């Protein structure tokens, strides 16, 4: 029995699903959280800091939704404000300075849609990350662990490799938003989810992601062990690479997306 696109949406949004902090706890040792964007505030919807992956120091940047209602309110349901993206960029620059690889964990319905977010330049904050990540002089790995909601997700997604959990989704617009534009009816989200091609399999097929991570077990024990091993392999593969070559590869990775689908009018 294969899952429908909307089943994946439900699974990706499930409150029981491991969140960013669960990944941090299970994959890394000695995580030390580093707060604040140095301009305005600390955004609890993005948790970031330094940690050890086996014997290697890494910078970890994770979106966090929280499990309980209280946690979820505190984390703004995983919807980052501009200061969250600015904190992420600050720590990426720090990682570059100290030659630490960056690991991003993405799980958001989207960047927060609020008055303050607009006043403090949500668009600009995301744009800055897209530009700076493209030429960051250290390896970047992004894993979509739950929801990959549009630009708010992509703001941590310009990486050397992008992986997706089997039940994660990645989409340009929420199925509800798409349904209300298409059919003026948000209840047709399930149909919209099919149209949007937002599953990990779709993303792999279109060359948007590099691999799908199977979610074999309910408590993720084996899954986490597998991810850790894969991460170590990623580091081995990218750490020795010349920085200029790494940046060129990253640029080309995004440069080619979609180009094979263009047609010639003349």
């Amino acid at each position: 029995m294969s899952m429908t696109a909307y089943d994946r949406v439900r699974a990706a949004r499930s409150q029981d699903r491991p969140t960013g902090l669960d990944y941090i706890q299970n994959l890394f040792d000695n995580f030390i959280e580093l707060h604040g964007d140095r301009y305005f505030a600390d955004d609890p919807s993005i948790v970031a800091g330094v940690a050890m992956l086996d014997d290697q120091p890494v910078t970890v940047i994770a979106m966090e939704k929280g499990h309980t209602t209280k946690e979820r309110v505190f984390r703004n349901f995983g919807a980052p404000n501009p200061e969250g993206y600015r904190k992420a960029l600050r720590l990426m620059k720090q990682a570059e300075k100290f030659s630490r690889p960056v690991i991003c964990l993405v799980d958001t319905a989207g960047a927060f849609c609020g008055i303050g977010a607009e006043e403090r330049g949500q668009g600009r904050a995301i744009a800055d990350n897209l530009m700076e990540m493209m030429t960051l002089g250290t390896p970047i790995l992004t894993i979509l662990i739950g929801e990959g909601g549009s630009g708010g997700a992509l703001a941590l997604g310009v990486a050397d490799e992008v992986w997706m959990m089997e039940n994660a989704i990645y989409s340009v617009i929420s199925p509800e938003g798409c349904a209300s534009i298409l059919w003026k009816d948000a209840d047709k989200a399930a149909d919209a989810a099919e149209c949007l091609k937002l599953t990990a399999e779709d993303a792999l097929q279109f060359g948007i992601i590099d691999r799908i991570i199977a979610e074999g077990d309910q408590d993720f024990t084996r899954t986490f062990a597998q991810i850790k091993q894969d991460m170590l392999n990623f580091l081995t593969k990218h750490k020795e690479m010349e920085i200029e070559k790494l940046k060129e590869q990253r640029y080309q990775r995004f440069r080619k997306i979609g180009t094979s689908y263009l047609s010639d009018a003349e």
Partner: protein
Amino acid sequence: MPFVQFLHKPKNELEKGGRTPKAKVHLAEESEFSKKCPSCGKSTPLSILWDNFNICQCGHHYRLSARQRISLLADGESFSELFRELVGQDVLKFPHYEKKLVSVQKSSGENEAVICGEAMIWKKPCALFIMEPYFMMGSMGTAVGEKITRLFEYATEKNLPVVGYTVSGGARMQEGLLSLMQMAKTSGAVKRHSDNGGLYITMLTDPTTGGVTASFAMEGDIILAEPGATIGFAGARVIEQTVHKKLPKDFQKAEFLLQHGFIDAIVPRRRQRAVIGKLLQMHTGGMKE
């Protein structure tokens, strides 16, 4: 054609570069004789509007097609188009998309939602992109992203500054994730152009929102905007539904962004050519050989 007459008359010393409008000028409401202003409610005959850069007496800036903007901006016949052949495809087999593409291509006379090329502004060469509001409100799909990326690569190679006019509802839903990825792709090309010392000036026009705001619209060295333009990341209606609050009166208007420090200046349409021309003249250094 009385509505293009003003293009022949130099308005001042600086305008005497001599410009001839392109033959093909797209007018959305060609059949109407006048337009009613959404700001002041006054009706103005089209011919008078056109003598006034399509601006109402009250200062409201009406929408312009990309070709109209090019004829206002570029010196004489200096604009030569690039990458016109690129068009989007219905890769996802998205409902109604293929039909929509065909009908919009017909009604707008354009292949895609951005026009790219090389031009002279005030005798300074530049790479130019102008997004097209009459093509799915400038939405960014694969072709738009590719055209803008190619333009920045072209400008980097030729050591040209880039001038870009944005108008967009954001990433094009109908091409799914492929559209989203154009945000990263274009940003990468902007960054390379910038690292090479290239100047990039953006003019944000009404409306500039979503994935375009969150990528190349906000990445200019100098960010300008048209008076009254709506500029933002999230749609106002979505924000209202999320926060359950009434939004401030000038929320997401160009004036609001200026006040909050996110744009450099608001430039009325009739001064844009002069301001951009001057800026180009003042940025002679920077480019790496």
